[in-house]
């Protein structure tokens, strides 16, 4: 009974943004009529197309590279493992801008190499390509973690029975990693449908772009469209829950992980991994580095310019680290009860809790922020005084990104062998001691992977940070945004490079170095 209360208390705040939208939609009565006209249906359709195609492509790419670094003798796979995760930290608005500047006509690539650029990077294919490159880590990270936790014995048997590397992958690895692939693809879908900066830049008219376009001009339409987006997200989350039977065999890490020799495929595999890292990380970071170096060479006369005073980045870097580390820790703590509840029982209550937590990832950050303004300022005093303080900002990150921790936490919870629990119970261990002494250590790699995803996403979050952070609390993301807004490209690039560097260091410290959860 107490456990159910705990789960309800953990899941309830996640319903806040959806309730806010329902309340606001009920106030502005005529909006449905407006919103359901073709100007919503077109964007809704495009949202579905873009979301599902990006999810499928990112799932394929993320799974392939995860298998290559986790299971094969790919040269340098330790380093690739870190590099492959990093595109996640590039904020999409600056990443997309850099990729346009790199690859389109007259762009940097053309100027440096003389090879003609793409006619223009825009529309569906532009958005599709850039999104796949920036989102495949949502699949790569959980799948790599899953593969590392899987016992290699079945794969070894398959190999001994004469299956080739790819036959083994298809018949043994994929079925075992399937839930992780599906969970990652769901995150990619939800991220894509909530994304604004990138689709705006690449001019692909999705529902979120319409929500932004109407936000000041016709707020009721914007609210109704947000509600439609939320409903779509919840429907897709429920569908994924049906497809994924999260009952993987207990992960027993017995001995050394299997290493599949790539043989003649080695060059091709290196080409794939190198190409992905090249396009998704080296190209945008290269453009940023070019702009930064150009700016550092030129200098600047205005006060407060980062190019003349890069130490101005220290405070934003510290703020970013504190807020996102807190968000990661809180998100894992909050979703863990929900994960227990939803991974074990498959009842309706579990489905609802799962849907509101995961659905929050699909709402635009602006909507999450406004919902928190509504609930916080409407709350009684001790809560209302949290308005625009660090706890509120961390709360916004947890609501927005809790989904990222929930998926991996569910897999981790499901991976605890029931026999172990029974034994502990027989031996008379209390619930809490069982959790701390037996289950948490077992779940640590999975929980850490989830925390890492929350961390990297919170670090680059922009709209909620701008509205809810304490006054005078610059983060790296807000520095990137304000510099890019004014076309101070050198400053924007320096801040973005700092973000990539800080993310890389934190990922290394929290995920890679310990327990090899990711790598």
């Amino acid at each position, binding site marked *: 009974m107490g456990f159910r209360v705990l789960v309800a208390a953990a899941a309830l705040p996640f319903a806040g943004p959806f309730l806010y939208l329902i309340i606001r939609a009920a106030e502005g009565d005529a909006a449905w009529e407006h919103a359901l006209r073709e100007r919503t249906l077109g964007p809704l359709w495009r949202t579905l197309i873009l979301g599902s195609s990006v999810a499928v492509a990112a799932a394929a790419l993320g799974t392939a590279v995860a298998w290559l670094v986790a299971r094969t003798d790919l040269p340098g796979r330790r380093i690739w493992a870190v590099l492959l995760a990093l595109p996640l930290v590039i904020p999409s608005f600056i990443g997309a801008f850099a990729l346009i500047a790199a690859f389109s006509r007259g762009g940097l690539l053309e100027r440096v190499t003389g090879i003609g650029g793409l006619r223009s990077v825009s529309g569906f294919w532009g958005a599709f390509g850039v999104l796949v490159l920036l989102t495949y880590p949502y699949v790569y990270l959980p799948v790599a973690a899953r593969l590392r936790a899987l016992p290699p014995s079945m794969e070894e048997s398959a190999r001994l029975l004469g299956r080739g590397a790819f036959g083994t992958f298809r018949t043994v690895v994929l079925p075992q990693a399937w839930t992780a692939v599906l969970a990652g693809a769901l995150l990619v879908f939800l991220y894509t449908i909530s994304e604004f900066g990138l689709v705006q830049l690449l001019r692909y008219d999705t529902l979120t772009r319409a929500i932004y376009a109407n936000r000041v001009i016709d707020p009721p339409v914007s609210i109704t469209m947000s509600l439609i987006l939320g409903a779509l997200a919840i429907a897709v989350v429920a569908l994924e829950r049906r497809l994924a039977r999260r009952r993987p065999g207990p992960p027993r890490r017995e001995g050394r992980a299997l290493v599949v020799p790539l043989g003649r495929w080695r060059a091709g595999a290196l080409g794939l991994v190198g190409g992905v890292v090249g396009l998704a990380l080296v190209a945008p970071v290269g453009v940023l580095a070019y702009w930064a170096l150009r700016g550092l060479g030129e200098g600047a006369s205005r006060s407060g310019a980062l190019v003349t005073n890069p130490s101005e980045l220290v405070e934003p870097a510290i703020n970013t680290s504190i807020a996102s580390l807190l968000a990661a820790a809180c998100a894992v703590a909050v979703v863990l009860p929900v994960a227990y509840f939803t991974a074990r029982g498959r009842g309706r209550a579990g489905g609802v809790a799962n849907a509101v937590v995961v659905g929050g990832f699909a709402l635009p950050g602006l909507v999450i922020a*406004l919902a928190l*303004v509504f609930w916080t300022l409407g709350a009684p005093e001790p809560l209302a005084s949290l*308005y625009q303080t*660090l706890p509120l900002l961390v709360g916004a990150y947890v609501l927005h990104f809790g989904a990222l921790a929930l998926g991996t936490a569910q897999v981790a919870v499901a991976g605890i062998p029931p026999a172990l629990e029974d034994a502990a119970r027989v031996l008379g261990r209390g619930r809490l001691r069982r959790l701390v002494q037996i289950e948490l250590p077992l779940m640590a790699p999975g929980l850490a992977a989830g925390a890492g995803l929350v961390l990297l996403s919170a670090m680059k979050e922009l709209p909620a940070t701008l509205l809810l952070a304490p006054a005078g609390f610059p983060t790296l993301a807000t520095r990137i945004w304000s510099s890019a807004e004014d076309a101070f490209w050198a400053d924007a690039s320096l801040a973005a490079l700092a973000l990539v560097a800080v993310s890389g260091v934190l990922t290394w410290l929290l995920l890679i170095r*310990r327990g090899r959860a990711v790598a």
Partner: protein
Amino acid sequence: MRTGALPGLLFALVLAGSGFVLAGCGDREALTIYSGRTENLVGPLLEQFAEETGTAIDVRYGDTADLALLLAEEGDRTPADVFFGQSPGAAAFLDKEGLLRSLPQEVLDLVDERFHAADGHWVGVSGRQRVLVYNKDMVAEADLPDSVFDLTAPEYRGRVGLAPSNGSFQDFITAMRSLEGEGRAEAWLRAMADNDSPTYANNNAIVEAVGRGEVPMGLVNHYYNERFLAEDPSLPSRNHTLADGDVGTLVIPSNVSVLEGTDQPEAAEEFVRFLLTEEAQRYFAEETFEYPLVDGVPPVGDLPPLDALRPPDYLPEQLADLEGTARLIAESGLD
């Protein structure tokens, strides 16, 4: 992280976090400014205000439209005293919500009546002019048009970039509707759409594309190209000011308002006055390449003086009907 290090780290974080909370709560007396203009542009000026007047300030920088939405959601519980925005459209939205307070007449009188709201709910601070940015390697100076209405001709097919979802473009269309008539504005938008004018996310994206040669021309605010050239002087992008009196030379004022929910109207008003002092106006001319709106402070660089420019007459109230403009743009087929 070895066992034991994680709880230690978390404890340190919580300590650091609560330190920030306490720091955040300390300054209830500070004048709170929501600024839709970025810290790069106005940060030094706001600090100067704090220093000179001894007023403590808390500034929240953000996107103008997002901050307007935030203020609407906060209502009378807003911690903000002042709103400093990029676009009269956003000020009009706040005005409709009843969130803005009247400024005294002598403050309004500092600027031309084209640059403040008649009811005194906002006053213009600095002006940004609409221009045609072009790539000098792709367009001969002789071929540059005099009017935005020339751009619908066949020789400009596919050659003029627009940013239909951008606040400044929408302000420009709203002005065109009231100056040239609803029908002419509608026809222009449709003709631009029919002329395959490529669309972009914002002014930055247009100037960047013109610099690369993806599109030869684009309609933008004047100062973006100044920034791009400051970063990379080798770029071939140049600004072209359309003929005197053409709606394409519209000057859009950034604007400041005192909020209805303020608990310190005097300090808020003092801040508004400060932005209109000669010192602050000179800052906008010299540091942000914008037009000073108060008489007697000339613009710098290649900018023609505001008086010589004779931008089309319009009343600021005409910039309020964003909704109608958005509908017109949506129906024209530009996206």
